[in-house]
C-alpha cells in the first residue's frame, strides 16, 4: 500500500455509535474499510469489553452468554464503491487446545451466513473469512455467536487487496492509526479544575469531595456504572471503616451482602444517583483514558476514548487524581511505581508465623490475585449445561455452584496488568468447569448458572510511590502521623494461592492471612506522587508496600483516600499550589477542612 498517497475519509454510519473508516489508495484504487466491532449499530447480546485495550489494542465485542449463544450484533457498512472485497476478522481463540474452540462465531452478510467458522486462532490476530461482493455500496453485517462461551471480535476488515493486515501488536498499532486517519490529538479538548480518572469508590469519593468544595470536576470511567469492584458488574461488598468521611462514603458504599450478590444492584442506583446529583461533576462514563502527557514532572492533559464510538477527548487541568487502580495515569506520566513483593529486609515487614508467604526473603513479582465472581440459582425445571472440555484442565475435579472472594487467581506466569485478559479467561474456565462438575451431581439438576462477571476484579497491581510509603509496620504499630487523614481498624490481610503449599489444590483458590492490628492511619503523604508534582492517587494504587496494601485495599478505606484527596485538591486550587505543599504549608487548614466537611449541609443547588 502506498501510504504517502493515502486519502482518508471518515464517515458516520448512523447517529449512535458506528463509524466505518474509508481509505482510498489513489494509485491502485484499492479500498479498505475497518469496522470496529465495539462500534456496531446494535451490539445485540454481545458486550463491549474495553478492559484489555492497552494489551491487545482495542475494546472488543464479547459473546458472554454463560453457555447460551447471544443475540446477533448488527450493523450497516457503507462502501465507497461496489466490487469484490476480501474480509478478515480480528479475533482469538481464548482456549486453544485439542477441543472445539469455546468462542466460535460466524459472519452474516446481507442475511447470508458465511461458511467460515471464526474464533479459531491462538493469540489476537486476523482470520481470513471470505471474498464478498458488494452492490449498492452497502451491506448488512452481523456477528453470529455459535456457543455463548465468550467468543470475541475486535474488528472486521474489508479490502479489495488480498494483503492481510499485520498481527504483531507494534505493527498493528501503526496500521490502525493510519487506516483510521487519526490525528495525534483528540478532536475535543475540555478544561477542569480537577480531573479524576477511575470511577471506583476512591474516584467517586474524590469527585464528590472536590465538587463539594467548589471545584469543577471531570470524572472519567470506562464502564457504564460507577463503583469499580463494588459495582453491580463485579459485586464485591465494601469493607473498612468510614473514618473522617462517613457522610460522603455512605453515598457510594454497599451493604454487607455476600460477594457476588444481586443486591449490588440496589447500591448501584444509590451510588450513580448521588454522584450524578452534583452539578459540578461532569461524568464521562464509558470513557477509557489511554494517555497522559507530562513535561518536567507536570501532567498537562489526559486523553480518553469513548469505548464504543471511539470519540476522543483531551482533558486539561492543573491537577489530576489517579484512581485507575492500575496506576495508569502515573505510569504514562512517568511516575515512580512498584509492583510485586518487597523483600523482608526492605521495610522489615516480617511476620514470622507465616514467613515466606507474608514477606519473602528475596523480592519477587507475586501479588494478590484477581477475582471473577459468579452465582447460580435453583429454578423449577431441570437445567442443561453444555460440556466444557476446554475448561477442565483448569477446573479439574473441583465442583461448585457459586464463587466467593477465594476464587482468585495470581501466578508468577501472569502480570495482573499485562495478562489481565488471560487471568479473566483462566477464571472463566475455573467457573464453567467447576459448575459443569457440580451439574453431574443430580442434586444440582435444577441449578441454573445465573450470573458470571465478565470483568476481572483486581486486588493489586501497580503502586505509585509517594512521599511516604505506607507499610505493614505502620499498621501493626498503629503509627500516628500529623497528616494521618485516613484511618482503619480492619486486619491486615494478605492473600496467597493455596496451590503454593500443595500442588493438588486448584490454582484459582486463595487463602487469606489475617494480622490483627490496632487502629492505624495512612498519611496524606502517601496520596500524591513523589515525582509527578500535580498528581494525586487514591485507591489500591496509592503509595504502599505489598504488605502495606493488605489492610487498606478495601473499598471504604480507598474511599477515604479519595475524599481526603478531593479536599486537598480544593485547597491546592485555593492557593495555586501542588499537593506536596498542602503538607508542608497548609496542613492545619487542610485538617480543619476535613473536620468541617463531616457535617456539611448539602447546598440547595445540589439537592
Amino acid at each position, binding site marked *: 500500500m502506498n501510504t504517502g498517497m493515502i486519502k482518508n475519509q471518515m464517515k458516520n454510519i448512523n447517529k449512535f455509535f458506528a463509524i466505518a473508516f474509508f481509505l482510498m489508495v489513489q494509485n491502485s484504487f484499492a479500498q479498505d474499510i475497518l469496522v470496529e466491532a465495539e462500534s456496531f449499530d446494535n451490539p445485540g447480546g454481545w458486550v463491549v469489553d474495553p478492559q484489555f485495550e492497552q494489551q491487545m489494542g482495542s475494546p472488543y465485542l464479547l459473546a458472554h452468554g454463560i453457555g447460551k449463544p447471544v443475540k446477533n450484533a448488527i450493523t450497516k457498512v457503507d462502501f465507497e464503491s461496489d466490487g469484490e472485497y476480501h474480509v478478515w476478522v480480528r479475533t482469538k481463540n481464548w482456549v486453544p487446545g485439542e477441543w472445539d474452540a469455546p468462542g466460535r462465531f460466524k459472519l452474516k452478510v446481507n442475511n447470508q451466513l458465511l461458511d467460515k467458522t471464526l474464533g479459531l486462532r491462538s493469540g489476537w490476530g486476523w482470520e481470513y473469512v471470505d471474498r464478498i461482493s458488494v452492490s449498492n455500496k452497502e451491506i448488512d453485517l452481523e456477528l453470529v455467536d455459535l456457543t455463548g462461551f465468550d467468543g470475541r471480535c475486535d474488528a472486521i476488515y474489508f479490502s479489495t487487496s488480498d494483503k492481510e493486515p499485520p498481527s504483531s501488536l507494534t505493527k498493528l498499532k501503526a496500521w490502525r492509526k493510519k487506516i483510521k486517519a487519526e490525528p495525534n490529538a483528540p478532536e475535543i479538548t475540555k478544561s477542569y479544575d480537577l480531573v479524576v480518572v477511575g470511577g471506583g469508590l476512591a474516584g467517586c469519593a474524590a469527585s464528590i469531595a472536590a465538587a463539594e468544595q467548589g471545584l469543577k470536576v471531570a470524572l472519567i470511567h470506562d464502564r457504564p456504572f460507577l463503583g469499580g469492584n463494588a459495582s453491580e458488574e463485579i459485586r464485591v461488598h465494601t469493607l473498612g*471503616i468510614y473514618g473522617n468521611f462517613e457522610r460522603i462514603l455512605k453515598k457510594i458504599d454497599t451493604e454487607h451482602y*455476600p460477594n457476588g450478590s444481586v443486591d449490588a444492584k440496589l447500591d448501584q442506583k444509590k451510588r450513580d444517583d448521588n454522584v450524578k446529583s452534583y452539578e459540578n461533576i461532569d461524568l464521562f462514563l464509558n470513557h477509557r483514558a489511554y494517555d497522559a502527557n507530562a513535561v518536567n514532572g507536570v501532567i498537562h492533559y489526559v486523553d480518553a476514548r469513548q469505548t464504543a464510538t471511539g470519540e476522543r477527548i483531551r482533558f486539561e487541568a492543573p491537577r489530576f487524581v489517579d484512581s485507575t487502580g492500575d496506576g495508569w495515569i502515573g505510569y504514562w506520566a512517568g511516575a515512580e511505581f512498584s509492583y510485586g513483593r518487597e523483600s523482608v529486609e526492605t521495610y522489615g515487614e516480617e511476620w514470622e508465623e507465616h514467613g515466606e508467604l507474608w514477606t519473602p*526473603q*528475596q523480592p519477587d513479582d507475586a501479588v494478590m490475585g484477581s477475582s471473577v465472581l459468579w452465582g447460580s440459582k435453583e429454578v423449577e425445571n431441570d437445567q442443561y449445561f453444555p460440556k466444557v472440555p476446554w475448561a477442565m484442565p483448569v477446573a479439574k475435579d473441583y465442583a461448585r455452584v457459586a464463587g466467593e472472594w477465594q476464587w482468585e487467581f495470581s*501466578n*508468577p*506466569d501472569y502480570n495482573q496488568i499485562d495478562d489481565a485478559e488471560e487471568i479473566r479467561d483462566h477464571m472463566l474456565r475455573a467457573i464453567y468447569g467447576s459448575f459443569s462438575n457440580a451439574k453431574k451431581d443430580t442434586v444440582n439438576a435444577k441449578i441454573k448458572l445465573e450470573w458470571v462477571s465478565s470483568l476481572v476484579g483486581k486486588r493489586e497491581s501497580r503502586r505509585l510511590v509517594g512521599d511516604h510509603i505506607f507499610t505493614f509496620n505502620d499498621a501493626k504499630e498503629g503509627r500516628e502521623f500529623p497528616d494521618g487523614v485516613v484511618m482503619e481498624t480492619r486486619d491486615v490481610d494478605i492473600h496467597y494461592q493455596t496451590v*503454593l*503449599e500443595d500442588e493438588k489444590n486448584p490454582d484459582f483458590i486463595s487463602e487469606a492471612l489475617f494480622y490483627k492490628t490496632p487502629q492505624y492511619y495512612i498519611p496524606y503523604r502517601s496520596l500524591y506522587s513523589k515525582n509527578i508534582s500535580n498528581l494525586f492517587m487514591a485507591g489500591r494504587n496509592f503509595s504502599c508496600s505489598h504488605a502495606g496494601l493488605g489492610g487498606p485495599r478495601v473499598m471504604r478505606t480507598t474511599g477515604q483516600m479519595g475524599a481526603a484527596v478531593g479536599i486537598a485538591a480544593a485547597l491546592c486550587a485555593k492557593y495555586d499550589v501542588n499537593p506536596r505543599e498542602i503538607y508542608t504549608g497548609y496542613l492545619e487548614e487542610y485538617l480543619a477542612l476535613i473536620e468541617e466537611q463531616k457535617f456539611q449541609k448539602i447546598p440547595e443547588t445540589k439537592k
Partner: protein
Amino acid sequence: MRIVFTLFIILLLFFNKGSIDFEYSVERNTSIETLDSPPEFFVLKWEKGTKLFAQKTDLYIEVDSIGRQEVLVLVNENKTPVLYTSEIATPVCADGECKLMHIKFYWTLLGEYAGFDRNIELPLTKYDHDEFQQSDYQKLHELLLDDKSVIGRRSLDQLVDKPKMRSVNGVDAISGATVARVKEAVVSGALYSCYTAWHMVYGDIQEKLKNTTLAALNESMIMEMLYSRNQEYQIFALQKIDDSKYEEHSKQIAEILKSSTPLVRSIIVKSFIQKLKKEPELQRPFWNAFDKIDIGTRSMLLKQLSEAPSFSIEILSKKLDKMSKNQLKLFLDNLAQKESIEPEIRNILNSFVNLKNNPNTYLVTNFLEDREP
C-alpha cells in the same frame, strides 16, 4: 460446683492413667521410653526401623481445670531431637456440659503439627455422645494439618453465633461464606472438640518448641531437614546453610526444586544463581528441571535468565514446547538482547513455527516478523 467438677476431673484422670498403664501397649503412654512405629496420624516420613526415645523437657501445656500437661522430646539413637509429643487430657465444654478429651499430639522440631494418636479406650465423642469413626479422626487430622484454618482466628462464640450480615466501623461480623467454610472444615457434630484440639496444637507451645529446637540446633539436624520431604524443614534448612554447603548439597537442592511445593521452589529459584555463582556448572540440574516443575516456578526461573550462564539458553531451547505464552516471550525477549542468534537456535525456532498443535507458534512467527527490516 467448681470444686466438685475439679474433683471429678482428677478422679477421671486417675482412672484414666491407671487404665493406660494396665491395658495399653506401653509405647502409647507418656511414661513410655520408646516409640518404634509412627503415630497413627502422621505427616512426616517414618523410616523403617526408627526408634525414638522420650526425654523430659521443661515444657508443658497448661490446661484449664486440669493443670500442666508434660511435653516430651523424642530423640533418635544419636540423641538428636526428632519430634515433640504431649499426651493431653482436656475438658471440652458445650452448653455447660463438659467431657474430657484424650489425645496425644506430635509436633515437628519447628513446632508444626506432626500428627496424633488417639486413645483406643477413650475415643473422642461428638456433641450427641456418638463416638468418632475412623473417617472423623481422618477429618480431624486434615483440620489440624491446616495451620491457617478458618477456626484459628475466631472465638467459639463467633463460630456458633448466627451470622451477622452487616459490618459497621470495625464490628467483626462473620459472613455466610465463613460459616460454610467452618462447616466444611470440622468434624460434623464435633465443633467444640475440633476447636479445642486445633487451638491446643497451635497455641503458645509452638513458639516454645521452636525455641527449644533452636537452642539445640546442630549441623546434623539441619542436614536431616534438608534431606527431609517436609516443606517447613526444607525452608528452614535452606535459610540456615551457607554458600559452601549450598554448593556441596546442590544436587539435593535441585532435587527439592523438582519434588517440593511451589512455595519451596520459589525460594530456590530466586537464590540458586547467586549461591552457585562460583560454580556455575552446578546450575545445570536446576535448568534441566524446567519441565519437571509447575508453571509458576518455570516463569520465575525464566525471569532469572539474564543472570544465567549461557548453557541455560541451550537447555531451554530444547524445551520450547513446554513453555507458556509468557515464558516463550521471556525466552524470545532474552534472545532479542543478543547481537546474533546462534544457527542451532535459529533452526529450532524455524522448526517450532511449523508445529501443528502448539498454540504459541505465532509468537515465534511475530518474533521473526519483527526482526525483519
